[in-house]
């Protein structure tokens, strides 16, 4: 009984309301491990450090969260645009961020997977847009709004990063606004109708290997006083 009380108190200290019971461990990105080990090493040798500054990312903050994408692929019933390789709704649950916390970084990571497509294949273009309406009529296809990223997919691409701080702040201020992002990967300079089998193979591989996540850094003002205020 006592241990349960103490456990609940310790969990509250961690900002949790009950013991998590994850089904499987998510992959931990290298940067989180690096920040963790740097922090542990500094504490071990007794170096005093500013716990509200994530120097590896160059932002202020005392909590980092890697949010997995909870969205889904979209298959439009109409014959897909010849140039469209894949369409996906990306959704990140920001409810874990407490009201008192300030967002200082929100970085979208898009991992298109290793050797996703042959570099001899068609050049691809990646478009990110806000979802204007979660769905149109009875179609579960969200209506994409303003495109805010449009770029060709470099080769080899590794993990692509996009700064979503303003979008995430908007979502965090009004959770109803968080209806996700619309990701579309297009074929640049598509040559007319007809199925291009290599293209179809490339797109199928992209759909299998695409992995999206949102890294958010937050600052708890109760634990982190504003850095500019000099100690009197």
């Amino acid at each position, binding site marked *: 009984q006592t241990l349960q009380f103490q456990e609940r108190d310790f969990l509250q200290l961690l900002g949790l309301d009950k*013991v998590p019971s994850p089904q499987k461990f998510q992959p931990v990105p290298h940067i989180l491990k690096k*920040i963790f080990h740097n922090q542990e090493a500094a504490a071990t040798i*007794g170096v005093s450090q500013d716990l509200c500054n994530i120097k590896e990312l160059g932002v202020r903050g005392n909590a980092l969260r890697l949010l997995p994408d909870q969205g889904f692929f979209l298959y439009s019933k109409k014959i897909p645009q010849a140039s469209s390789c894949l369409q996906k709704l990306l959704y990140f649950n920001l409810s874990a961020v407490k009201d008192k916390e300030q967002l200082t970084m929100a970085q979208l990571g898009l991992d298109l997977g290793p050797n996703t497509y042959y570099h001899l294949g068609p050049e691809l273009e990646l478009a990110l847009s806000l979802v204007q309406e979660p769905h149109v009529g009875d179609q579960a296809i969200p209506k994409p709004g303003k495109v805010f990223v449009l770029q060709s997919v470099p080769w080899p691409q590794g993990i692509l990063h996009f700064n979503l701080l303003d979008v995430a702040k908007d979502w965090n201020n009004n959770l109803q606004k968080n209806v996700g992002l619309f990701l579309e990967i297009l074929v640049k300079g598509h040559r007319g109708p007809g199925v291009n089998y290599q293209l179809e193979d490339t797109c199928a591989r992209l759909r299998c290997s695409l992995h999206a996540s949102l890294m958010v850094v937050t600052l708890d003002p109760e634990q982190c006083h504003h850095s500019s205020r000099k100690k009197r």
Partner: protein
Amino acid sequence: AVLPAPNVSCKNLCHRHQLFINFRDLGWHKWIIAPKGFMANYCHGDCPFSLTTSLNSSNYAFMQALMHAVDPAIPQAVCIPTKLSPISMLYQDNDDNVILRHYDDMVVDECGC
């Protein structure tokens, strides 16, 4: 006048007691990715007058130990942490989010009166 130094054995004197809690013993290894456990060190022990003139004790502890020697109704100075260090926790919550948080003043490094 020199106060009689009480013959207190060293092990009863104020010092840091080390205690490591393995998260596996609590079943928390299923959601805490790192570290494997937590140094729950604590401070415990007497603060006799003789100690307050040597160990990293505060002047206040010196005065309180003096007062205690003169009037035992006044409690001895207490044994508390004098140096603490932070820890970082890398864990996963129920929404499959991976979270890294820093917690200040979590591990007792040194104790004093």
